[in-house]
């Protein structure tokens, strides 16, 4: 029994991933259809893709017994079927129904998985949908006589007919036939337009198209391979979604652990080979015993294969690190829809231009970066881009542009969110800050400091609280999340010309540069990104303030934390001088007193087992090249303790 349960859980987790991907696909397709409505173009492949996605959701949900999801997907599928057969014209109203259907479907999926409470309004929606569909069904029946009775009946009275196997079969057959038809059509088009293969992002232009599709979120489509692949037949509908397999990240981690062990053993083998070779050389020069004639070549062989082993293990290690990397497009995909919805709600006209969707970064960061980006984009649409009429008056194009761009720079990934809107009104922010009591009227603040106010919890410049923004949540979330990912955040704004937010994130949280220090008998690792400098200080330069040790560094008073005392370690220390690592966090500095510096190294972060529990001052551990363990110092908690714990009052730092 327990096996069955486990399998079901696994299925559900697959379903969750698959549904998420498909719902994004549906979004991308709907956005394209919306463009078609505006431009008057069409592409049957988009509707087919939409149909396939809904069909897959329906199938998977049915397998797991998520009848609500299955039912709604089925009805939406019916609606798409009408579109596909040209029995219903593509219009704004159809799309609105599809968009809200898609949202309900998302909520139903989340409810089924158990993440969210069941959504309300599903019944009302289905009634509306049925009514809408029924009108066209009837028309179709009148026009085509008995050409579409099965499909028509199923849609008009699905409650009774849904379970009937013959209907389902007929329906499946119809789907297959239509897919084949679409594929044939596709091939014919492909033959006349060979360039499409090279540019999968481009929507296949029908032969009548005279100009390229105007403003659109093209790169988003590039990241949605379902449409890009333009699958030649129905069999490929699954594989065209992604040429990948899903792997539990824990399995990758265990693989990485094993490789780490392999690396350590490789080092040992190399050592043995070297020692052996040296011994052979010594022996040959002194005695030249009979045995060395046999062993010497063996020693050389060993050295050779040790070198080969070294190269292979390094490559394996690198490959596994790469496997953990995923394109940031996975997050970007959901934004065109978000921008569209927010723009619509606020009466703005906005196009989102995405580039760099293929930029890789660590899976754990990709999962976390979505929320802050979402808040930024909302903010851009709501506060950045001006209303269309105002833009026209200013001599700007009616449609505002928001660019989302990602690229690698050294060991970091840079994500830029920029708009061509009005920029941040510093005076307004300042006035609002004074009104909300965040600053006082006679505070002199730099532009940078005024911008910082935006990220204060509860801050909002919006005069009216809307459902989009203005509640004062959002930007502080952005700052907090980016900080948690060990990222840096920057804002450039110029009045009238727009605002650019730049986020710099480390490529991976799993591997960091660290400064190794010795305290007593143990080695500790201090993340290098928080290390400002390290130096040796004579004890005469260490003074005390309220009984706490401090040093003065370039005019600033820096409190000291003796690691040996903090961690209650024993050991004798030099009474005349101390080794200090200055670490900084959000402008606060603390000097960590250690026994010795042991150099920099790249380390793989491993969490301490929860059996050990949470320990103040320790954020994890790492295994060094020689197999020994080094604990990683949690700079955040040490700095926090030094200040919040009242080691030195805050007042003593300002103005010194």
């Amino acid at each position: 029994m327990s096996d069955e349960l486990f399998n079901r859980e696994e299925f559900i987790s697959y379903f969750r991933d698959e549904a998420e991907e498909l719902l994004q696909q549906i979004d991308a397709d709907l956005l394209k259809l919306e463009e078609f409505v505006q431009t008057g173009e069409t592409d049957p492949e988009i509707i087919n893709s939409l149909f396939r996605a809904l069909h897959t959701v329906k199938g998977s949900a049915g397998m797991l017994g998520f009848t609500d999801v299955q039912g709604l997907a089925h009805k939406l599928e019916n609606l798409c079927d009408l579109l596909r057969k040209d029995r219903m014209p593509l219009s704004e109203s159809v799309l609105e129904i599809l968009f809200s259907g898609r949202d309900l479907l998302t909520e139903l999926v989340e409810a089924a998985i158990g993440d969210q409470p069941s959504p309300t309004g599903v019944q009302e929606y289905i009634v509306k949908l049925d009514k809408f569909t029924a009108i066209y069904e009837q028309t179709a029946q009148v026009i085509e006589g008995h050409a579409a009775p099965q499909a028509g009946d199923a849609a008009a009275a699905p409650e009774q007919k849904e379970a009937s196997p013959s209907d389902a079969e007929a329906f499946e057959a119809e789907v297959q036939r239509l897919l084949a038809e679409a594929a044939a059509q596709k091939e014919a088009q492909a033959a006349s337009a060979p360039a499409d293969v090279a540019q999968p992002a481009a929507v296949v232009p029908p032969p009548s198209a005279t100009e390229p599709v105007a403003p659109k979120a093209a790169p988003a489509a590039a990241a949605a391979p379902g449409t890009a692949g333009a699958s030649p037949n129905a069999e490929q509908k699954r594989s065209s979604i992604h040429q990948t397999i899903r792997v539990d990240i824990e399995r990758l981690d265990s693989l990485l652990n094993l490789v780490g062990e392999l690396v350590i053993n490789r080092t040992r083998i190399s050592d043995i080979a070297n020692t052996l070779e040296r011994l052979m050389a010594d022996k040959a020069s002194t005695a030249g015993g009979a045995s060395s004639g046999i062993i010497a070549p063996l020693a050389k062989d060993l050295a050779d294969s040790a070198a080969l082993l070294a190269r292979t293990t390094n490559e394996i290690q690198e490959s596994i690190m790469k496997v953990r990397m995923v394109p940031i497009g996975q997050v970007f995909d959901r934004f065109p829809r978000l921008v569209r919805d927010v723009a619509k709600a606020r009466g703005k006209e906005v196009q989102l231009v995405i580039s760099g969707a293929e930029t890789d970064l660590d899976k754990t960061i990709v999962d976390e970066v979505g929320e802050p980006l979402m808040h930024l984009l909302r903010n851009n649409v709501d506060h950045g881009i001006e209303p269309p009429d105002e833009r026209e008056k200013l001599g700007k194009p009616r449609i505002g542009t928001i660019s989302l761009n990602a690229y690698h720079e050294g060991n970091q990934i840079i994500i830029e969110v920029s708009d061509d809107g009005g920029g941040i009104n510093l005076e307004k922010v300042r006035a609002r800050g004074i009104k909300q009591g965040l600053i006082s009227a006679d505070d002199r603040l730099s532009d940078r400091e005024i911008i910082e106010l935006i990220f204060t919890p509860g801050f909002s410049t919006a005069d009216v609280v809307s459902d989009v923004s203005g509640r004062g949540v959002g930007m502080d979330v952005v700052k907090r999340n980016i900080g948690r990912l060990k990222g840096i955040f920057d804002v450039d704004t110029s009045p009238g010309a727009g605002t650019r937010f730049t986020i710099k994130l480390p490529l991976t949280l799993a591997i960091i540069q660290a400064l190794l220090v010795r305290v007593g008998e143990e080695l500790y690792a201090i993340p290098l990104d928080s290390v400002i400098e390290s130096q040796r200080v004579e004890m005469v330069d260490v003074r005390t303030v309220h009984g706490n040790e401090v040093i003065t560094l370039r005019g600033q008073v820096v409190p000291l934390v003796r690691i040996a005392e903090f961690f209650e370690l024993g050991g004798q220390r030099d009474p005349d001088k101390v080794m200090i690592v200055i670490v900084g966090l959000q402008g606060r500095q603390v000097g960590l007193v250690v026994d010795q510096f042991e150099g920099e190294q790249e380390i793989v972060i491993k969490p301490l087992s929860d059996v050990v529990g949470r320990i103040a001052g320790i954020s994890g551990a790492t295994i060094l090249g020689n197999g020994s363990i080094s604990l990683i110092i949690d700079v955040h908690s040490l700095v926090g303790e030094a200040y919040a714990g009242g080691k030195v009052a805050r007042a003593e730092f300002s103005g010194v």
Partner: protein
Amino acid sequence: MADGREEKKQQFSGEVVQVVSFRLGSEEYGVDISQVQEIIRMVEITHVPRAPKFMEGVINLRGQLIPIIDLRTRFGMKRIDATKSTRIIVTEIGNKRVGMVVDSVSEVLNIPIENVEDAPEMIAGVGTEYIQGVGKMDERLIIMLDLTMVISGEEKQALEQVNEAVAT
């Protein structure tokens, strides 16, 4: 109280209980073999500062960090330096892996279920909460440990530390 112990005994299923037996001082203990992942020789243990007292530190087992409990400290016995026969029994309970330092590992025993009895109130300083039962093999008495209790109970440990602090 008697009911609780009755339940513990019920946790053993089947005709015989297979246990890995080991020594701590003069006593012989046993853990259910299904919970034992492997037995390794003593290795260097990295001390974790500010961890609970019985937490000896962590070791690197093929790239995995395994927390190590010193059973002597856990049971309030005198600490001793590692000898040639000192072993670490790596156990797996749920998905938690924990190593236990013991004086020596003896053998795998098949103890008939009818020879397993409830634990007496107190055995040489080891609280009954850690004990699942006592197995009899010929003249030997094997104290069978409830590992879940051995590794959990941080709260209890923390409480003891608070009590100590109050006392001093």
